[in-house]
């Protein structure tokens, strides 16, 4: 900016403070409610300041929602999605950008098509796919009537419900990360690959010692974004876990929300909400710079 205008500057700070308050308002009230007892919460008028039962409520929330176990699940799923997606995408992006082979364009388009349809658009069939991953094979077997040849009934069943695999794999099935890495690879100087070829290095060597180190900042940024994405997943854990001990923290939280047939324990629910949002918030606050860089780069 060019000139100093006190008026506008103060107004800007005012706006930002207002914005900050708006952002924090729900979190503040979650803290207020999460630190009172049920009867205090139900009182009219409702409490405006925090109470003193925060830690007791936290213990109750942890207990009631089995959060210990669920946090472990969420962590495994989030890390699994981040690591899985990044690993798979790095390999695919490398293949599509650095190799000339017969099926290159076909592979490229197959991957590209998957960008067009977000998972939410094919909810039910994806559920079926997870319920029996071997279903396509079963169709093949039925179509070819292999059972009759072998004289036995062939029932192929690979059920991924209530498993980490089921929670992680369907979410790796989109090519956003592949395209990000591909784009990045396209900006890598040609000389590096040329030098590798001249030296007689194998492609994998090149990938491991040259490309990967260059991609670290992208990997970290994407890792953060994917970790958050995985931790905050809702629809898929909802559908794929019928066993309460395999649910993620976010789903466990949903079960704590007061419904009409239970006691309105909003204090426990809000407390649990704070607990569940804590790990992602810590990640965002600590790794802000990487995150912002990652988001903005992804949009380019």
């Amino acid at each position: 900016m060019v000139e100093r205008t006190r008026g506008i500057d103060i107004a800007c700070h005012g706006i930002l403070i207002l914005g900050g308050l708006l952002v924090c308002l729900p979190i503040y009230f979650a803290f207020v409610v999460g630190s009172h007892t049920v009867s205090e919460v139900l009182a009219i008028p409702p409490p405006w300041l925090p109470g003193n039962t925060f830690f007791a409520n936290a213990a109750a929330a942890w207990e009631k929602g089995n959060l210990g176990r669920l946090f472990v699940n969420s962590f495994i799923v989030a890390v699994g999605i981040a690591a899985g997606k990044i690993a798979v995408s790095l390999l695919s992006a490398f293949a599509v950008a650095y190799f000339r082979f017969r099926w290159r364009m076909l592979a490229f388009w197959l991957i590209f098509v998957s960008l067009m349809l977000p998972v939410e658009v094919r909810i039910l069939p994806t559920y079926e796919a997870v319920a029996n991953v071997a279903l396509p094979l079963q169709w093949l077997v039925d179509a070819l009537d292999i059972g009759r040849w072998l004289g036995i009934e062939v029932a192929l069943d690979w059920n991924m419900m209530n498993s980490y695999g089921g929670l992680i794999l369907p979410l790796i099935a989109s090519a956003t990360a592949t395209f990000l890495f591909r784009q990045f690879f396209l900006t890598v100087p040609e000389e590096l690959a040329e030098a590798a070829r001249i030296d007689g290095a194998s492609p994998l060597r090149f990938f491991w010692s040259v490309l990967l180190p260059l991609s670290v900042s992208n990997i970290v940024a994407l890792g953060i974004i994917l970790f958050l994405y995985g931790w905050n997943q809702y629809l898929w854990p909802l559908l794929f876990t019928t066993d309460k001990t395999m649910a993620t923290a976010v789903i466990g939280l949903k079960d704590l929300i007061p419904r009409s047939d239970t006691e309105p324990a909003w204090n426990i629910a809000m407390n649990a909400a704070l607990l569940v949002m804590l790990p992602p918030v810590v990640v965002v606050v600590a790794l802000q710079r990487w995150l912002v860089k990652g988001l903005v780069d992804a949009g380019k």
Partner: protein
Amino acid sequence: MNLTKRSLFTGMLAAGIAAGGVVPAFAQQRVEIQFWHAMSGVLGERVDEIVKRFNDSQTKYAVVATNKGNYDEVINATIAAYRAKKAPQIVQIYERGFMAMLLSGAIVPVQDLMTEKKKQVDFSDFIKPVASYYQYKGKLMSMPFNSSTPILFYNKEQFEKAGFSGPADTWAEFEKQLYAIKSKGAAECGSSLAGDYFWSLMENYSTVNDQPWGTKSNGYDGLDTEFVYNKTRLVQQVTRLQKWVNDGIIQIAGQGLSPQQLFTSGKCATYFASTAAHGGIEREPSIKWSATYLPHEADLTARNSSIGGATLWVMKGHKSEEYDGVAAFLEFLAKPDLQVWWHEVTGYVPISNTAYQMAKSAGYYKDHPTREIAILQLNRGTPTPNSQGFHFGNYTQATFALREEMESVFANKKTPQQGLDDAVRRGNELLRQFEKLNAGKY
């Protein structure tokens, strides 16, 4: 040496069996029966008690009871499991799911199973409304387990404060009472709207007042049935309810608020709910409450109300010995003393006449008069084609549509007639689909 070894072995075996800690390899493993149900909380504990009693009473079978969530979740889990060829042996399905289960091709009719396994269950002993709901071609398709009917709970003190001894018999008089209670300040609101009001205040309004819900005797006589409740006195009832909501006589509990609590905390003077709510209400002694029959229209005779709740269905695709176990468990459940116990601890109605008489002669209803209202209401008068039950396909979806339309009515976005018309239109579409898919099967 041989002799010593053998005697040593026998000695150890005997010791092991005596200690109870060793199960000899040749002993029978119990046949496992999976039982999926929707009873949570205290009800769930009662179910666990029943299962334990059965398991302890014999050594051949072991029933494993799992609470799969609410009724919707149980039927969805059953469908998913069935498709994956991993269905349980016994499932508890709500009354709404009757047609879906009947024509699914996935069940074994209970009466057939019990006859085949030569179990002593007197199927003619089940109380009429229960039997008539779950029968098809004269045979009972599923085993009655937890049946209820809606009754009217009321706050005695608040009625007295407004100058009434109790709720009136007719809707017109009852309305006057509720308005008086509110205007005199005896209570903040006249009635708390239960989550299943479409059952207690609409479906049962129709059965009690002999109003058809659909053609063909509410679907009993054919799949080509059509909903007609937008052309009956139900329109009057919905208009009445809408007025009550607008005037603040009815309170709709929002998210996180329990309608039952609105009643037990003294906020609302009445609560139309299942007789099974007895258990929960009895545990809140802060108000002086009682219960009575549902009101009826002044110019119509009061008929019987219809049942709600669920029954136990037996799924196909299991081994013969498992079915033996299923039959044994169902026979156990049908025993009158177990039924009396279940009735007393939960508030569900006693499902057989014998059980009812047992409870009566033991003086139970003298000490708990409100417990008898449900069964008296169910047995009141002669059933008509409109009061025997509801046999509609895709009924869960149709009920959802009705509830959505009622939400619009209560928000004054649609008139009662419009709302019911739309609900009927949507419901009929679902019925036609069901008819098309199941042509010739009913």
